[in-house]
């Protein structure tokens, strides 16, 4: 199977938008997780981001925080990830998302080699700044795992370019100031972050025209997808909205419906 980065790049070249779905591992039994993956895949999801829990996930909103605690409480550890990962990656291009200390503790090359053996082709680490990404790029090159970097609304112009040059696979564009998840009423008007977001997309395209640019954080509605596609994003990443359905009674069915709506919005004409 092609890597996540290759898949996203091919879709971008063909003018197709992409949807990545984030699901924290370990909060439900493996069969249920894989059922959700199958339903998402059938609805047209391009890739899966497998969340691996960390005790102190500072970039996460309440939904993913709770999922991480629950996963750890249920005893989900690296070994469990290693047995789940091949079953996911044989179905769909797969990334793993977790925090830097997990890699620091195992050693970057060893951790990436493990993930590669599990079939993951990208890794997303919210607390890995571009300045520290070098070891991930060199180890990732050997293991064929792309370290994906994140750009934010506050990132200065030069910095966006530095991040776009430093990332591999695709660029994760953070939609707004805030943690992951659908925000409450006091949060920022989505229109407010738009100029900055456009700036990031434009800046990144300037230095890496072929690099897929995916917007995440707080994306949950078809209108979000249309708006970001309209701004020139090559796709979106949806996490908390899917995660909160995973543990519900008819979760996989509702996940599939939600994914279909989002995928339809990807393909809708924009401009």
């Amino acid at each position, binding site marked *: 199977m092609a890597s996540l980065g290759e898949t996203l790049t091919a879709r971008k070249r063909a003018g197709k938008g992409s949807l990545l779905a984030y699901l924290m591992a370990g909060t439900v039994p493996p069969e249920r997780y894989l059922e959700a993956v199958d339903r998402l895949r059938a609805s047209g999801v391009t890739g899966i981001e497998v969340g691996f*829990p*960390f*005790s*102190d*996930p*500072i*970039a*996460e*909103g309440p939904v993913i*925080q709770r999922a991480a*605690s629950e996963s*750890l409480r249920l005893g989900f*550890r*690296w070994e469990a990830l290693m047995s789940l990962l091949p079953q996911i990656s044989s179905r769909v291009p797969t990334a793993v998302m977790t*925090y*830097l*200390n*997990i890699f*620091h*503790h*195992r050693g970057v090359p060893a951790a990436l080699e493990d993930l590669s053996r599990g079939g993951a082709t990208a890794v997303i680490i*919210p*607390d*890995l*700044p*571009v*300045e*520290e990404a070098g070891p991930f790029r060199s180890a990732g090159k050997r293991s064929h795992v792309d370290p994906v*970097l*994140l*750009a*934010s*609304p*506050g*990132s*200065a112009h030069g*910095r966006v370019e530095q*991040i776009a040059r430093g990332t591999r696979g695709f660029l994760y564009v*953070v939609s707004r*100031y*805030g*943690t992951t998840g659908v925000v409450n009423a006091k*949060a920022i008007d989505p229109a407010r972050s738009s100029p900055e977001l456009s700036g990031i997309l434009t800046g990144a395209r300037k230095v890496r025209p072929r690099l897929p640019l995916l917007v995440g954080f707080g994306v949950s509605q078809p209108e979000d997808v249309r708006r970001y596609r309209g701004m020139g994003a090559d796709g979106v990443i949806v996490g908390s909205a899917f995660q909160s359905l995973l543990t519900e009674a008819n979760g996989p069915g509702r996940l599939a419906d939600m994914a279909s709506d989002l995928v339809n919005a990807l393909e809708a004409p924009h401009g």
Partner: protein
Amino acid sequence: MPERYGKYGGTYVPETLVPALTELEKGWRAARRDPKFQRELRSLEATWGGRPTPLYRADRLSAEMGGAEIYLKREDLVHGGAHKLNNALGQGLLARRLGKQRLIAETGAGQHGVATAMVGALLGLRTEVYMGKVDMERQRPNVQRMRLLGTTVREVTQGTQTLKDAINEALRDWISNVESTHYLLGSAVGPHPFPSIVADFQSVIGREIARDSHRRFGDVPDLAIACVGGGSNAIGTFHPLLRTRTRLVGVEAGGAEGAMGAASLSRGTPGILHGMLTYLLQDAEGQILPTESIAPGLDYAGVGPEHSALKDAGRVEYTVATDEEALHAFHLLARTEGILPALEPCHALAEAMKQARKMRKDERIVVTLSGRGDKDLEVVARHGQPG
């Protein structure tokens, strides 16, 4: 301002925080060189904050040990009752200079929360403090003080519901409100430039110790001891003494007898938490472990990165005191010197008592008494009076 202390420190944060940290570093560099900023800080420290604090020779305590003379650096007499004000006032002025309208902070024992609440009121900045549910229950008087000072106290129910989780929540708030808000971090921890800024503002402790030691006995102390949670009062005590002959000892929380406590330097391994590479208490896969100490201000799985470097370099010795030893020190100080200390510096006192016995009568120990004990009366009472 070093970004790293040896290999420790750094800036391991989500990209959203990078611009704010850059702005903060720039603002701090400018403020440091600005005589007007420094004058205002010194003036408020003196007229509002109660500095300088005395260096007190504890004769009855020293006699009880029968060895070295023990001096107490009386940070418990700073306005608000702890050394935390030194940093809160400095950073508050810095936040105002940067045009921020809102302060947020984390607090464990509540002393940093109270200091931030006082500074927020003084400077007219809206203030919100994150505090673990467990800590709110065991440090109730400080919750009440913050509220009376006009601060909103936000209860943190995630994770271990103590200091670590309060920092997580404060960081998440900052990520969401980074343009309007200054995160007034209370210890010498977190991403660069926080450890340097906090060390700078807290170094007033060590400068006064060095100056007063020379005035009182014509020399630096033979030994300086401070407690270490995140390590702000310790780094402030040690910094100005690093290039002298003074032996330096940091004391971590050992917790209950036989438990792991919160001793990241003594019992941990290097890892990345809260934006810094430093010694952490973590499991075999890098998950952060729950900690426990009778002193909420020391109850933290990490430690300031400069302490990690000072440990590796061997310049500072780090040791532990148990809950029981800290309580014993509390009662002894109360009865010999008429001072009710906070449980945090009782860990340093316990070590000073051990050391004093082994030292000569003409040698001198300075212990930083980082806070007063009013907040701990309930906890101490629950453990009963000594026999």
